[in-house]
Every structure is written in structure tokens, then in C-alpha cells.
């Protein structure tokens, strides 16, 4: 039997907790291994904080999602959303599974090209595509998704200059019955702007419409919104087909499926309240199958799912650096990973799991990061047993967005490791050093001279 953690004597108000339909049970949970690898050994070898990705989970979730759609629709193509996680190793796993690349900037475009993804397997989204980037993408056969008229004109201009006719797609926004309604990306469907854009594109004679794209929102918990989006895009596709005689080759319903994370404002945990991917698949594909496309003109269904695929596969390994009591008597602890590397803490109630539970009373605890900033709160309130300094914690799911939106702020960014399907642990991103940050800087000689004096 392990020795109980030492805790300073304190007086706590004893409550039974509010009655709720899930019962009183606040279970004592720990997580000591990821894919069979002990968390403590990972920290011993690579230090903390440490991002850990599970290749097994990445592949498993991808296959689950692919299966859900491919059982219901003849042509399905996933494109890995680079902005969700563009670590090379991670992208390569998705490409290995058959995913194309979905990029939203010339930076991401270049990242995909560097991984050997041919232009025609890259979807180029985003509201700003500088002209050289747009020209390159068009020339390399990328699926360019036009966001606004200025971009359409620019694409036409490029086509004229190159003397070619390029396939392009347009981004469409619409009312799908959810809030907030995203109407900032692309052309509006409901007021006819999207159809206008499609016809304008056709009559321009330098471009032709290859596909339709929409991005209705993020962390959408209502699959029916996708049914509406898909059926509106299908209706638009058919209308364009009737008016121009040109069938489109794909319909892209974007991303935004909820992962199993729990939003701060959600009552029930995400593992219970997020719909299974099959429900999204059912909604999207039934709308497309019912749209009545001809057997030869069934558009390919493109998906840009990011978060729902990767979130579960990412873990943050961290350690307790200090315990304290707040003035109001609440328990608090400081850990070595903060919002600088866990950006999603602002959105989600992450699961915070100790690696070891030495017993003692579960108590609501505030989990603070290491930054000298008031906002650095990883969990405002979570039931934890007493923990000692250097005890390890696992924060999950953190696979989506954290390793792209992380900040170099106050602290350096940590290592990232990948646990392979055979249990091998590989470093996929080295920890930053001060040089990583400083080598880009230039100090004017007049300033460097003075510092030398002192």
C-alpha cells in the first residue's frame, strides 16, 4: 500500500453536493499509461510538460470516421485540416490513411507540398490568399475555394495571364438553424449570392466551377445542421447544373464536428453529449443521396474534419509544482503546463487525471498554469485527490489546436512525442531553446555596443 500524500491540516465545509441525474458519484480516476506506456517513464525520459500523441488512436478515429461515411456514400474523401495540427509526423499519418490536405494559408500550403502532397490533393481555404500563392495553387491544380468576389476576380486575372481555364470552387455560407450563424466565409446561399457567384464565374469564361464548400461553424453538436448544409449545397449544385449544364465534381461540408471534449458551458460531459460520428455521417449522406443526383454525376463528398479526429489522440503530461489554499479556502495547485501551451483550456473543461491516487479526500481544486498571468487557469474547478509536488497529471483531450495555437510566451514550448502502433516512442518535435526564439532577432549595433560597455 502506498503512503498517503501529505496535506497540511485544514478545515473544509462538508457538502453532499447538489443532486443531479448522474448521481452523486464523483469517481476516483487515474491514468497511469497511454497505449501501454507508463506516463511516469515518458516524463522521466522527456521531461514535463510533454505533449504525447497516440498513433493508434489517430488511425482508429480516422478509420471510424471514414467507415461511418463510406458505409453511406459512394465517394468520400477526407482532407486533413492542417490548422488543427500541422506537425509533420501527424500530417503524415493522415496522408498515409488516405487523407488529402486542407490548408488555409500559403504557409500551410507550403507545409503540405513539403510533405509531398501534390497540388491536386490540397484544398485551399481561407479568406486571404495572396496573389502569388493563389497563382501557384491554381497552377498546381489545387482545389481553390474562393471566399469573396475580389478573390474570384483575381483568380480570373491569373487564368487570363496564364492563358488557362482553371477549376475553382466557391465557399458558401447559409442558415442551418444554428447559432452563431457563420456568414463571414464565402457567399451567402439564402439570399442568392452564391448562385450569382457561380454564374458569374461560369460566364467569365476563365474559370469553371469544380465544387462547393461550406464551413457552417465549429464544435457543432447538432448533426441536423449538416443535413441542412448538405442539402442546400446539393440544391445549389443542381441549380448550377441546370443553368450552366456543368455538373460539379465535389461537395465539401467542411469541418466542425464536435469532439468528445466538454465545453465550459456544457452540463453533461462531452463523452456523453457529443453525437457519434455516425450521426453526422447519416445526416450529411442522406441529404446528398436524397438530392437526386444522376448515377454518373454523384459528387464526391469532401470532409475537412480536424478536431473530431485528433482531439482524443493528444495528451498533455504535466507535473504538480506547488499546492496552496486560496483565501476563500479552496484548494489550488500550480502545474508546469499553462494556457501558453493549452490554448483550448479557454474553451474546454479538460479532463485532468492524476497518474497516481494515494487516497485522501477528493476536493474541488483550481488548477493554475505556471505563467505569471491571472488568466492562466487550466481548470477552474476539478475534483482531485491530494497530490504532492512532482506528481504527474494527464490532461486530455488536447490533440486539436493546442500544438498550432500555442504561444511562445513566458515559457518555452515543450517536446512532442508520438507513441507508435507498436509501442515505440518517438520524439516528433524538440523542445524550444532560447536560441529558437532569439535567432530571428537582430539588435542594432548601436544598442549592442552599449550593453557591452556596462
Amino acid at each position, binding site marked *: 500500500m502506498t503512503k498517503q500524500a501529505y496535506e497540511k491540516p485544514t478545515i473544509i465545509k462538508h457538502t453532499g453536493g447538489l443532486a443531479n441525474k448522474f448521481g452523486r458519484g464523483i469517481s476516483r480516476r487515474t491514468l497511469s499509461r497511454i497505449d501501454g506506456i507508463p506516463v511516469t517513464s515518458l516524463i522521466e525520459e522527456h521531461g514535463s510538460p510533454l505533449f504525447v500523441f497516440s498513433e493508434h488512436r489517430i488511425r482508429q478515429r480516422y478509420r471510424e470516421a471514414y*467507415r461511418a461515411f463510406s458505409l*453511406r456514400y*459512394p*465517394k468520400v474523401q477526407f482532407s486533413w485540416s492542417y490548422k488543427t495540427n500541422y506537425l509533420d509526423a501527424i500530417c503524415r499519418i493522415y496522408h498515409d490513411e488516405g487523407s488529402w490536405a486542407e490548408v488555409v494559408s500559403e504557409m500551410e500550403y507550403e507545409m503540405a507540398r513539403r510533405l509531398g502532397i501534390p497540388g*491536386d490533393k490540397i484544398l485551399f481555404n481561407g479568406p486571404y490568399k495572396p496573389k502569388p500563392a493563389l497563382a501557384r495553387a491554381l497552377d498546381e491544380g489545387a482545389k481553390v475555394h474562393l471566399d469573396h468576389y475580389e478573390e474570384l476576380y483575381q483568380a480570373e486575372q491569373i487564368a487570363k495571364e496564364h492563358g488557362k481555364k482553371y*477549376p475553382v470552387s466557391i465557399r458558401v455560407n447559409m442558415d442551418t438553424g444554428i447559432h452563431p450563424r457563420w456568414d463571414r466565409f464565402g457567399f451567402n446561399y439564402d439570399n442568392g449570392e452564391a448562385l450569382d457567384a457561380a454564374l458569374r464565374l461560369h460566364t467569365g469564361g476563365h474559370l469553371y466551377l469544380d465544387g462547393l464548400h461550406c464551413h457552417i461553424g465549429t464544435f457543432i453538436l447538432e448533426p441536423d445542421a449538416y443535413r441542412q448544409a448538405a442539402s442546400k449545397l446539393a440544391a445549389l449544385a443542381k441549380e448550377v447544373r441546370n443553368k450552366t449544364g456543368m455538373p460539379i465534381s465535389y461537395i465539401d461540408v467542411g469541418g466542425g464536428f464536435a469532439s468528445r471534449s466538454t465545453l465550459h458551458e456544457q452540463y453533461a460531459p462531452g463523452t456523453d453529449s457529443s453525437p*457519434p460520428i455516425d450521426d453526422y455521417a*447519416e445526416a450529411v*449522406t442522406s441529404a446528398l443521396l436524397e438530392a437526386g443526383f444522376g448515377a454518373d454525376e454523384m459528387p464526391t463528398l469532401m470532409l475537412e474534419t480536424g478536431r473530431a479526429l485528433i482531439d482524443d489522440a493528444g495528451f498533455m503530461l504535466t507535473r504538480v509544482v506547488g499546492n496552496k489554499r486560496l483565501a476563500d479556502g479552496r484548494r489550488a495547485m500550480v502545474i508546469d503546463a499553462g494556457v501558453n501551451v493549452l490554448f483550448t483550456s479557454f474553451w474546454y473543461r479538460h479532463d485532468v487525471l492524476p497518474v497516481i491516487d494515494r487516497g485522501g479526500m477528493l476536493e474541488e481544486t483550481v488548477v493554475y498554469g505556471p505563467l505569471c498571468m491571472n488568466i492562466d487557469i487550466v481548470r477552474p474547478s476539478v475534483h482531485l485527490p491530494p497530490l504532492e509536488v512532482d506528481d504527474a497529471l494527464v490532461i486530455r483531450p488536447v490533440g486539436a489546436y493546442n500544438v498550432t495555437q500555442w504561444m511562445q510566451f513566458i515559457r518555452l514550448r515543450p517536446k512532442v512525442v508520438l507513441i507508435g502502433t507498436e509501442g515505440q516512442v518517438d520524439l516528433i518535435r524538440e523542445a524550444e531553446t532560447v536560441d529558437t526564439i532569439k535567432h530571428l532577432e537582430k539588435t542594432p549595433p548601436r544598442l549592442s555596443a552599449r550593453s557591452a560597455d556596462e
Partner: protein
Amino acid sequence: MQTNNQTDTGRSGGGAAYRVTKVARSLLSAYSQIYFSTRVVTGLLFVAATFVVPRHGAAGLSGMLLSNLWARLLGRPDDHIEDGYYGFNGLLVGLALGLYYRYSLQFALLLLVSTFLTVIIAAVMRSLSERYIGVPVLSLPFVWVTWIALLAARRFSAVELTIDTVLVSGWGGGYLPVIVELYVRSLGAAFFQLSVLSGGLVFLGLLWFSRWAVILSVIGFASGYATYAALGGTATDLTAEFVGFNFILTAIALGGVFIILRPESMLLAAAAASLSALLSAALLAFLQPFGLPVVAMPFIAATQLVLLTLLFRTSGGKLETNVTELDSPEKNLTRSLYRKRRYPDPSVPVVFVPVMGRWVVTQGPGGELTHKGLWSHAWDFEVHDEEGRTHRNAGNAREDYLAYRAPVLAPADGRVVRVVNHLDDNPIGEVDTKSNWGNLVIIWHFGDVFSTMCHLLKQSVTVKEGDLVTAGQPIAKVGNSGRSPVPHLHFHLQRSGEIGAPTTHSELLHYIEIGQKREDYITHGVPQKGQVISRMDVSDTARRAVTLAPGRSWRFRIREGNSERIETWLSEIDPVGNRKLRVDGCRIEASFFADNHYTTMLDFTGSRRSLLGLFYLGAPRVPYLESDKIPWSDTPAVSPFLPGPKRLIHEMALPFVEVGRLKTRSTMTRNAHTVTVSTRIARNAFFSNNGSVPDRIEVVFTVGEGPTSLRCFRGDLETLKAELVV
């Protein structure tokens, strides 16, 4: 435009020459057809054999030309005239009468009327046979007309008898052993030639046509002769009446022409030859009072009777009949072998996989649980995840099952004839044995082919009885109704539209077989228990690129080493839809089949060094796959790619064992406008290493253009490069 004009002029110029050679070919084939050949050289040698006595030969030629004229006058179908059917009956009538009568004006009149009769009888017999019997008429019209004309001529004193033909019968005799000489003369007797010289020419013609035909002729002659001799037959029947060619023709016809050449067919040939010996003796006895010769009657009777017996079977057995596409025994065998290996049996219904995505066959045809007896030809499909689980969570609810509510598709075009849609889905683990089949859809695919999809989700069927459905159309969802403890799809084909009718053997078309290590495209097959399969998704780009549109031509510049040459292909289609690529200006041809799912080469004839031959090897079949990771295998025909002596060995051994094999494995890569098919060719040891078969062939197809380049490799070395000349 420029190119088009050039091509057109080129072709119409070739057209005139083509027409002349076509007429010549059709005339020669009337000769060669007597031994089931259409070869030009064979025809010429047979013509020479009849002209040993020029007047006799002239009688035959007149008979042929006259009957063709009568056939045209009577408006017989062009293709029947062109395939030499009237011509060869007329030829035989001319030769038969020319054997007895001197060539004179009166004889010409007799011949004129006889050929008229020949055409009438031939036309009637062919119509009746095609409509009611289905066995070839052979030279039966000639037999009847010859008997009639010979009987009639007895009353016409103006037609004079001749002895020219008998006078030459000794020519070339005495050099060969008696029995061999008799065999050679029997060969010639099919053309009413009595001399050994003629028989020798016929032998050479037959040898040119087919080595196996020669072997069969020996088998037939030996068997018939032995029968005759063993039963103590009158010696002159064979030496003077020349019934021997009947044994020979019977053996060739049944050993390898109308029946595919096999050890079994050789036995049958021997038996039938001996039967024709019996029939010969009977006919001789019967016709003696009338003074009529038996001519080819024993052969015709024996062949037709045996064929009729075989055609009345329901299952094939070892003896496989072949009455539509006639060629030499070795060619017939090759075609049959490759068709069987590469394409579904035309009598077996084929349909597409009725679901999307990856499915596991959890019970196949002849399964150990319920697919037994009358209902054995069926599949149960379920969905498994990577760990082999059929469900999420605990699997206590129907919704946990991966297959549950997946769409079910119409497996082929058809009309919905039965729908059951109201039965409740069972809780997991329970079955409804009262409504065994559960909710279901039965689709009539016309003729006597019906498909049944069972255990569907309650109220999920979106079609109603009487609806027309197209292949791949969603019609319902997978459920758990009827005798189904867990959600799955039961699928089978049957021969009638009732619920619970016995199932029938069928095959699935165009699917991907997913193994542990690799995936494979399969054109047709019967997936077995445990196999994971998925439908083939069709790529529009590939479909538009892999096109060999009829009427198009392709002009390739070919660089091989330091030499350069041009080869032009024409794509042709005939009225019934048979398609082929032909090299302009020569007899190099590759027939092919193309539909919405794939293009596949059928037979190739011509030089193994031609670009078309390499195309045949490099793109033996090209499925229009959406995924470019999936390879496929094929076994293209071997003999066109073997050098002469080895080809002979290959052909001679083919009925017993296949020496020389080619296996191809192809993959496809695709970009916006082109599809590249790369094919690795594995040769077995029989092929010498420096032969003309490359290790790898890469064919590039371009959208709207078809093949635009072809490259051959030995190892990594490029040995040949052909590019489309624009």
C-alpha cells in the same frame, strides 16, 4: 481538322483494297471451310488440290460462283454469303458432279439448276436450324442436292460421263506405305479428288491451318479404319468409295472445332469417327440400290447427333461445346481457356455489391449456419472495425452495431417486385422465426434473375412494388428484422420472384478484396466467409481517359533503340457491338470490351513486336478505379508473344498442360487529366529472357484522347517509347 482529313483519305484508300481482299478472302474461305478453316494459304492449297484436273477444278469453282450469284439474286443476307456458307455448298456440288460428268454446256446447265437448288435448300436449312435446333447445318444441303442431281442426270442423256478424274487417281501413288497413302487420298476425297497429289496438297493446307487438326485427322482416320477393318468391312468401301474422309472430318469437328480440344474431346473424336464408320457402312448398303455415293452424310449425321446430345445438357462437364466462334482447335482452346479464367460464365448472373464501404462476409455460399440446401447461394454481410468488433459500446442496442442503418443499394437495374417494410426490428439476440426473411426487397432483373435483400430496417424501404430501380440506387437500410439476431444484410439471387424461393449461383462484379496486407481489384467472383470486400468506386477521370472510342485513330511514333517507326491504330465496332483495335494496313487486331466500369482486352492476333501487342500486354484490363492504391492481376494470352518454335510447343501441349504463362499485375496513378497504368509482367521459365516481352509496360491515357503514350522497360532501362503524333 488537318489530321482528320489525312486519316479519312488514308482509310478510304485502304478501304478499296480492303474490299477487294475481302471478296478474295470470302471466296478462298469457301474452300478452306471444308476443313473448318478461314486461312488464306490453306484456301489456296485447297484450290490447287481441286485444279489437279483443271476441268474438275473449274466445275467446283463454277459451282461456288453460281451459288453465290443465286444467293445474291434470292437476297440472302450478306453475311451468310460472305462467310462462304452458300459458296462452299455450291463448291462441293460442283466438285461432286464434276467427278462424274464431263464439263460441257449441258453440264453447265445442270450445274446452274443444281446450285439454285443448293441455295434454296441451304437457306431453308439454315433458318430452321438457327431457329429450332441450334446445331450447324454443315454441308447437308450439298449432300441432298448431289443425290438429287445424280438421280436426275440418269434420265438426261446429254450429260456425258467423264473418266479424267479417275485417270489421275494414280498420280503420286506408290511412294507412301499403303495405309498412309489411303489416309492422304481420304483427305483429298473431301474435295472429290482421287489423286495422292491432291491429297498431299490438302494435307499441307490442313497442316498450315492447324497442327491439332492434323492430329485429330489421324486419330479419326485410324479409329474409323480400325473399326471398319475389325468388323471385316469390304475393303473397296475405303479404297474405292472413299468413305474415309468422313472419319477425318468427324474427328476434327468434334475433337476441337465444335467442342473445345481436351483429352476428353480426343476420345470423343475417336468414338464419333468410329460411329461414322458404322454409319458409312449402313448408308453404303442403303444407297447401293440407288447407285448413289454416301458423300459426307456419315460425317454430318455423326457430328450433328453428337452435338445435339451435348447441347441438350444443362451443365457443361468436361466436353465444352463451341458453336458460335469457330476457329482452329488450338485457337478455340486458347480462347475458351482465357475467357474462363478472365471473364464470368455468361450463364451465371452477375450483380454489384449492394452496400457501400467495407463489409465482411460473415456467412458465404454453402455457409455452415443457414446457407444450406436450396438456400445455399447467399451472402451475409456485416461491418467490422479494425479490431474485428461488430459494434461500439457493449453491443446491447441495435444502434451500437456498425452495420445498422447503413444504406442498401439495388445490385443491378431492375423492377421492384416484392416489398416487406412493416416488421419490427428484433432486440439484439432475439430472432423472429415467424417472418423468417424480415423486411425485404425483391428486385426482378429481367429474364429469370431476381435479387433479394433481407432483414431490413423497419420502414426504411424507399421503393415500392413496380418501381424501376437502377444499379447502385439506395433502396433501404440495414436492420435487424426476421431471423436476424444482430444487424446484418442477407443477400442472394434467385430464379423467381417469390419470398423464400431457392437461391441460385451468382457472382459479384467489380469489387475490392481487402486483405490483411493488400487490396485487390476483382472483376468478378464469389466472396467467401471471412473476406472483406467493398464496391468499386468509379473515377470519372479514369473513365474519360481510358477511352477507345469507335471511329477514332491513333498514330504513334515508336522509338526502339536507334530505329523509329510509325504505327496507326483504328478503333472499330461491328453491328452487334463487338469492338476491336486494328493496326492500319495489316492483320494485327486486339478485340476488347468496354463499359462504365472497365476496359478489357479479349483476344490478340498478330505480331508480338507490334505496338498493339505491347498495349494488349500493358493494359490487359483497366478498371476505372477511384482509389489509385489498388492493384489488379490478369493472365493475358501467351501464344502471340512466343517465338515460332516455342509457340508450337505451347500449342501442342495446351490441351494437357500449360507451358508458358504470363501474369500481369497493374496499378494506376491518376492526376487531373491523365491516367497512367503501370503493368509488371511475370514470365515463367518457358519464356527466354531475351524475348520480346518486357518486364514492365507503362501506358498513359489522357482524358478525351485515350492512349497517348506507351513505354516498355527491362529492369529500369527503357527499351521502347511510343508517343501519339499530333
